[in-house]
């Protein structure tokens, strides 16, 4: 009883320390917003001829009858620039004020809207499709960051997510193709992830090996193994890589909502699963006895041990569960997205997921925000490539990685990970 009662209080305690932000950094954010406003005012605003419009399609072509939204680019960007600048000023003037991250996020969102208008000037952009694709691409990042959170909240760094993704993607594709059953594919993806989670736990917990190193070697192992098996097993027999995928499942009624319906409520099961998992892990970590114990083990294992928590078994359990989650996220790459497995198809998103977790300060809903941002930047490149905005496509492909660096170095500031994250535990 008392354990449960303590949990929220504990959260309050960690909240202020979770993000250590200097006044200079907040002011820097204010300056950044003003700079964005200048860009919106100049190139995106006055730089565009007054009569040029951008058209946003607000429904999947045949279905819902929301009329396309056609806006004059200049006369949208200029007022938005003023709003953005207005948001930046309080950050500079009152860096200690509340809601500064809200102000900043709002400013960035306004900039993105203006950017989209500029990119689509004189053309069409299917806004609903873009939103839907952003959510789809954020799905593996959600699974990955949840996996990282499970492990790191209990004090084990799981940098092997990329490898667990690959293993889950491979086995998911192979088993679902072999059995013609997609759910078996999900299950086997989870098993693949669990195996490598267990390997990480075994080497890190039993032998106290360096967790980051073991993680990196697991990635190398999974990369080599899946490449080898793709050549040796999948290539000769196309039936083992048949490219089955889950089709989108529209949630009844909700998918009829204009704009939001086709974008949010017409995804496949992976996305809904990720959202449910997010809520479960949030409640689990911060409102239950299990979560308090896991966090205690991640913060101060010795103290946890003295009150009778078995540190190693908590860690084993969490790391293997983290592997399961990452394995399911890996299955998204094949049976949740493109179908066929191909070598190195995860393209570093396992690491991006870790960055999302750090950006979200080891909290599920923080990671959600970060995953949506990255998902958006991944989907943006494919849409911008079609629009021919004059930015070479390699630079568009760089965007998620550049944003990741900006996020881990600039925006988050010095985050405070669980105190015993990555530290091997021994009783003596």
């Amino acid at each position, binding site marked *: 009883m008392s354990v449960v009662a303590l949990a929220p209080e504990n959260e309050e305690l960690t909240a202020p320390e979770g993000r250590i932000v200097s006044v200079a950094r907040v002011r820097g954010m204010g300056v950044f917003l003003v700079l964005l406003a200048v860009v919106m005012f100049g190139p995106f605003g006055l730089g565009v001829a007054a009569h040029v419009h951008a058209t946003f399609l607000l429904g999947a072509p045949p279905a819902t009858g929301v009329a396309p939204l056609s806006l004059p680019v200049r006369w949208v960007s200029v007022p938005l620039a003023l709003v953005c600048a207005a948001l930046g000023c309080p950050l500079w003037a009152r860096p200690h004020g509340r809601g500064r991250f809200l102000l900043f996020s709002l400013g960035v969102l306004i900039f993105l809207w203006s950017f989209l208008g500029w990119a689509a000037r004189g053309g069409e952009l299917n806004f609903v499709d873009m939103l839907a694709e952003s959510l789809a691409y954020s799905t593996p990042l959600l699974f990955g960051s949840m996996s990282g959170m499970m492990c790191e909240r209990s004090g084990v760094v799981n*940098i092997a997510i990329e490898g667990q993704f690959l293993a889950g993607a491979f086995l998911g594709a192979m088993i679902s193709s072999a059995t013609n059953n997609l759910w078996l594919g999900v299950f086997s993806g989870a098993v693949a992830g669990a195996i490598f989670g267990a390997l990480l736990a075994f080497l890190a917990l039993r032998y106290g090996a360096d967790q980051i190193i*073991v993680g990196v070697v697991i990635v190398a192992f999974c990369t080599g193994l899946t490449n080898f*098996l793709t050549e040796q*097993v999948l290539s000769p027999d196309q039936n083992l890589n048949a490219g089955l995928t889950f089709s989108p499942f529209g949630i009844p009624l909700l998918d009829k909502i204009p704009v939001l319906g086709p974008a949010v409520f017409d995804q496949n099961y992976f996305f809904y699963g990720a959202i449910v998992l997010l809520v479960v892990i949030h409640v689990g970590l911060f409102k239950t006895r299990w979560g308090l114990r896991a966090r205690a083990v991640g913060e101060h294992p010795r103290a946890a041990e003295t009150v009778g928590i078995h540190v190693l078994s908590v860690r084993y359990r969490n790391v293997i569960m983290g592997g399961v989650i990452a394995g399911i996220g890996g299955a998204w790459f094949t049976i949740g997205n493109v179908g066929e497995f191909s070598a190195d198809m995860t393209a570093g998103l396992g690491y991006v997921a870790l960055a999302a977790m750090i950006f979200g300060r080891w909290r599920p809903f923080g990671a959600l925000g970060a995953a949506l941002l990255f998902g958006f930047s991944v989907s943006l490149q494919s849409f911008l490539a079609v629009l021919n905005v004059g930015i070479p496509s*390699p630079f568009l492909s*760089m965007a998620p990685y550049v944003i990741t660096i900006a996020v881990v170095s600039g925006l988050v500031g010095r985050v405070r990970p669980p105190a015993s994250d990555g530290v091997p535990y021994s009783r003596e």
Partner: protein
Amino acid sequence: MTAAEVTPGGELPPEEAKPELQAAGAPPVPPAPAWRRALRWMGEANLAVVTFLAVVVGLLVGAILIVVTTPATLHAWSNVGSAPGHALGVSFSTVGNAYGALFAGSVFSPSAVGHAISTGSGWTVVFTPISETLVSATPLILAGTGVALGFSTGVFNIGGQGQLIAGALAATYVGFGVHLPIGIHLPLVILAGAAGGAVAGFIPGILKARTGAHEVIVTIMLNYIFLYLLNYLLTTAPLQQPGQSNSISRTVPGSARLPQLFGNGLRVNLGLIVALAVAAGASWLMRKSTLGFEFKVIGANPSAGRTAGMDARRATILVLTISGALVGMAGMSTLAGTDFFLSSGYGGGNGFNAITVALLGRNRPVGVVFGSLLFAALSTGGRYMQSTSGIPIDLTSVIQAVIVFLVATPALVREIFRLREAGAGKILLFTKGWGG
């Protein structure tokens, strides 16, 4: 055959010295005969034995993978009830062919030697595999030393790929951009490679020191950024080969190429000498110099370093920059040594293998040299294996990963093989959590 012959001999003396010291310190006990000590040494979990056993286990895992994925062996095993000998025979011959090719492609081929002896010619063919192994080892030595340098300061430089591309890019620009005699041009190319890598290493260094961004994330992201940057540059004016629609760069002229050491037939080049010199320099830096001492102290205990007046931030920036410079030289060594032009995705897995090589060499330049030779032999032989027996070369990355797993957790090897505790029983701890 003893383990000492097979595994890096450079690691032995400190381990071997212990029993002798004990024997000398306790006169009443007569010193054990040499063969006894050798036997005892082989039963210990020292570096050489652990590394040797790791290689054996790695090859064993590879053999199992071959057997369970090759149709011919699978077919033989499906009839194991009626012909058990046949199943075993097919398995052994398949694995034997594959590993035979692995050896012939990386060290020497016995049949080629026989041919050369009987006819008196064809010695180039005999030395080609070993030359190719040395060629593959060159970038690994450079990049592995760079990564090892980072580890010794508690910095995990996983951005080998990006730094390698940056180094190769800079070397290419200097290579085709200026026209000078080789005596000036080649050193400039080498320096450009180092400078390119140094810039790519400086970025995570300064970000870590100034903002606390963890170098693992930043360096991985930089890998992708440099990959796309290279893709972009390869399609634009100064770098792209004129008149080409493919993404390949201009070729560097002869004055920017590392000369071959043994004439035209063998590709082994001056890059190997440069790599060995750099490894020796890094060894000196870490063992003898004040800066190296600072790096090690800060790696082991940052607060102790600070108390002693060392600047941990400066050390972080410096070590990542130097580390990047060495990895950049690795990119330069392949560009100016064997490839002479860039293509998209340049560098292959060298940047990543540098990490495993550094782990295998236990962060010591000498160890890195031997580890690089081993891994280079595996990948060179792997290419030959793929072309002759059809087993995908990716098998060798699995073998390499297994080897590093075991080397990174010597306690596991000790338990599997019931070895006595010794030097290598210590846990490898290089990195710190996100906070460090």
